[in-house]
């Protein structure tokens, strides 16, 4: 008898555990208590693990419920509803349960003391009594799901709605879960597979095709459908918020490119890194063909949004991607006014300019006349540029040749000297200009040269002219002569230093 009961226990327990949520009223065992003397009468296949005979045929119901003797009923065996999440072997459990176990041991509402056929799903505690969890909470990360559960992909009986309604472990609701779940997933991929398929991860991970933990999950069309309706989630990592992230992220990216590839496809980094410097890192990132989505796509902010959003300071609130839409974040690496102040930083190569700029990028401006492409100067700069030139807000000569560009234009527009020293033009508003001009010349000699040729000044400042010395009190003649003694003879009849 005990043997029979143990067999029945092995039969009934999995029946209850593998039962799907009923589409209709579950079989009312208690009402049929007087009809069935044994469990195996209906559940003959349980003991042998024979799935085809785990549940009775529907014809067994209609032998009574024929509409005459008893009203007709609709009942579908659970097995016909497909494979669920639980993985269970009745024969193996029957063998281990021992001779004293019966079906009621697990399925009886009060255990073996339950009235006959007063059975139902066994409580979860029945399982965990033997398969002890690491922590009491059933969905805790430390527990091993695969002990009792199939993978989601194997659970073909679950509908999209049921998958969507699967309970979420408490850990998944923690604020930093998205940032930290990777390490756990690497060591317990099997547990993840209980509720997830590859598409679950590929919703956000642009490197899904090359990530071992993700590749460890099978693909599933139901998850693909569910994922397609949900937007990816990309929290800003803590190190991205650091003020020097724009400078320091290159070393981080080189050291751990795989980390970048979680969120960033090649197109994301190529927003800024159009130069050669980061090509090696970019090559390691997923390209458009490989990445399921484009991940975090960065968009470079152009003028007039000057210096608004360094990479690390983008707020989550700025960005609400829609499913399958480009996940765009606007970034601007360089600070306000960098176009005018970049000299020292670029010269020191604080950041590797070549990381983001093609080598010819500098020449686009510093070559002088390639104007218009980057709108460096404001529109119609020509009618307001004088103050900038005098004050050297930026050095005009770093892009323009004074003689070939500035003077050529000033001469044609009638602003430059005609060489006679008595024109009615430029400095005539100051009648004593000849006496005054020395200070102006020494303060802004470049602007003088933007109109005057050298010979114009030599009319007075040479031994050929009025012999007015242009040298200031701190002029080191020997030092100048040491570099270019021939130049002294532009003004002097003979070497003023006597060859010393």
């Amino acid at each position, binding site marked *: 008898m005990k043997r029979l009961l143990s067999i029945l226990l092995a039969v009934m327990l999995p029946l209850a555990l593998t039962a799907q949520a009923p589409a209709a009223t579950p079989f009312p065992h208690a009402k049929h208590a007087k009809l069935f003397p044994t469990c195996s009468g209906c559940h003959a296949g349980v003991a042998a693990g024979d799935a085809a005979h785990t549940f009775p045929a529907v014809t067994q119901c209609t032998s009574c419920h024929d509409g005459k003797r008893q009203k007709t009923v609709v009942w579908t065996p659970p097995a016909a509803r497909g494979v669920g999440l639980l993985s269970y072997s009745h024969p193996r459990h029957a063998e281990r349960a021992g001779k004293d176990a019966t079906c009621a041991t697990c399925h009886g509402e009060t255990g073996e003391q339950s009235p006959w056929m007063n059975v139902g799903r066994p409580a979860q505690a029945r399982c965990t009594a033997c398969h002890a969890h690491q922590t009491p909470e059933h969905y805790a990360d430390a527990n091993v799901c695969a002990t009792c559960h199939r993978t989601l992909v194997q659970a073909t009986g679950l509908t999209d709605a049921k998958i969507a309604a699967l309970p979420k472990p408490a850990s998944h609701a923690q604020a930093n879960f998205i940032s930290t779940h990777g390490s756990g997933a690497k060591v317990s991929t099997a547990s993840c597979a209980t509720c997830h398929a590859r598409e679950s991860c590929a919703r956000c991970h642009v490197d899904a095709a090359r990530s071992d933990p993700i590749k460890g999950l099978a693909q599933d069309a139901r998850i693909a459908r569910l994922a397609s309706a949900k937007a990816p989630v990309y929290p800003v990592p803590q190190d991205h918020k650091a*003020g*020097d992230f724009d*400078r320091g992220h*290159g*070393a981080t990216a080189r050291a751990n490119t795989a980390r970048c590839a979680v969120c960033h496809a090649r*197109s994301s980094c190529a927003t800024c890194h159009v130069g*050669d410097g980061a090509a090696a890192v970019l090559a390691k990132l997923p390209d458009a063909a490989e990445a399921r989505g484009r991940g975090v796509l960065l968009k470079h902010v152009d003028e007039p*949004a000057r*210096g*608004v959003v*360094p990479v690390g300071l983008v707020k989550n609130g700025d960005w609400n991607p829609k499913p399958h839409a480009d996940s765009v974040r*606007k970034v601007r690496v360089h600070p306000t006014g960098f176009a005018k*102040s970049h000299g*020292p*930083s670029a*010269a*020191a*190569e604080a950041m590797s300019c070549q990381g983001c700029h093609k080598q*010819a990028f*500098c020449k686009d401006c*510093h070559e002088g006349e*390639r104007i*218009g*492409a980057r709108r460096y100067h*404001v*529109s119609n700069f*020509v*009618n*307001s540029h*004088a*103050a900038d030139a005098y*004050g*050297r*807000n930026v050095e005009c000569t770093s892009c323009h*040749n004074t003689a*070939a560009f500035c003077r*050529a234009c000033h001469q*044609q*527009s009638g*602003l430059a000297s005609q060489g006679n020293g008595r*024109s*009615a*033009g430029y400095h005539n*508003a100051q009648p*004593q200009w000849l006496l005054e001009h*020395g*200070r102006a*010349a*020494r*303060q802004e000699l470049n602007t003088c040269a933007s109109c005057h040729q*050298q010979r114009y*000044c030599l009319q007075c*400042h040479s031994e050929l002219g009025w012999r007015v010395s242009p040298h*200031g*009190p*701190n*002029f080191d003649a020997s030092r*100048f002569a040491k570099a*270019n003694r021939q130049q002294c003879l*532009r003004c002097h009849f003979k070497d003023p230093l006597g060859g010393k």
Partner: protein
Amino acid sequence: MLRKLATTAAAVLAVAPFVASAQGVRVTGVTYAQSIELRPLVYDSVGSYFTTGTGEWRVLADGTPAHCVSGSDYCVFQRSGDRMTMAPLTQDLSFVSWGLGEGISVHADVRARAQLSSHDLVYPGSDRSLELIDAYADIDRSWGRARIGRQWVSGGLGVYDFDGLSGVYRHDRYSIEAWAGRALVQGINNTYASAQLASAEDLPPDQDGYIVGARGRFRPNAVTSVTATYQRVLMADHSGLYSERAALDASTRALGASIDLALAYDMVTGAWNEARLRIGRAGFHQFGYSIEARHSAPFFETWTIWGAFSPVGFDEGRATVDWRSPSLPLTLSAHGAYRKYNDADAGMTLRTDGWRAGADAIVQGPGALSAMASYDVDIGNGASRNDARASVRWSGQGERSFGLTGSAVQNIYEFNVGTGRIIGGAFDVTWPLGPDLHAMADIGVYRQLFSVGAPGPDWTQRRASLRLEWTLGRDPGLAGTAK
């Protein structure tokens, strides 16, 4: 012209075999046409009885200065002449080919210019009808780079062009770079003894120069970099130097702030051309700021006489602050600077300081529209102005954008222009005509409303430009990248 054409053709032919066997070739073209109206100043005469004042220097009724030679019944003054139009056309072509071997690539940039209008006005540089900007072969490995051909070096001393060799050796935190070759004049892309420079200077150098330079860079950590540069340009006969300079540039970050230091020293005159210390920080509780101390003095090569005229520099303090609204897509910024010139030991009564200040407001939301308004004042020696501008821009998908800008500028105190006000507006559009073809155009209308005190040019003008950018070939190293 023939020589230039031959040089360019030779350079193209020299790289042609490499290009033909390359794994990839990319050709970029930029066509840029402008139309600019100007009214150049011309001389006119007036009866002396129409002038006020006495002596040689008098003024007309509207304040225009006139020069009256004693004993003559007429005085000479300047006024804006007939309206003329400059229409320069520039065609740039850039070639890049790669895949000739690990890290080997060939580059060339050629520029052609033409003048579309028949007026005498010529846009600066239009006489240089064909220009080889650069043409070099490059081999780049993780440990270093070598380059041969027409190229340039940029750094703390500016941008220098030359025909020659350069190389970089990289090791861990260090890199060493050296370059040498025939020096070219910046902005002209030709040699010191070339006809190009001779046409622009009345005392041009009579021999070419050779450039030699070296640079060492040290990166003690990811956010710090120090670069020291030395460079000299020697005269071809080794009898002297056109320049000898050194620079030190450093940059780091500490406590969330970026710190930049730049020093440039002219070893010929013993002058510091640039000494700059800048501290800046972005995103500090919605605020960003920068403060800067700067000394600036002009630099001249020794083939000009200007260095012997003892130019003096100025010391300047600068500051900027910007604030980003936490709830609105709004950024406000303000900047100011004050400069004081060093003692010039010459002349009289000119101002020896200057200042500038300004403010900007920028609205840049997540949508396609952005707007900006700015106001700037710049008061200083020689020229001053105040300047108000406002613009609205729509930026759509695929780099499409429209912009509308209005401006009002007042030039004040300027030596020749006197006081004048110009208002105007400009409209610009950027539109992709295909995946590799972009068009940009702008048109502007400006009107001078008021002028007094000097015979400045009438800045009433119409301007327009059209720019076409096209590309053939793919981008090296980014195959498969979604755009």
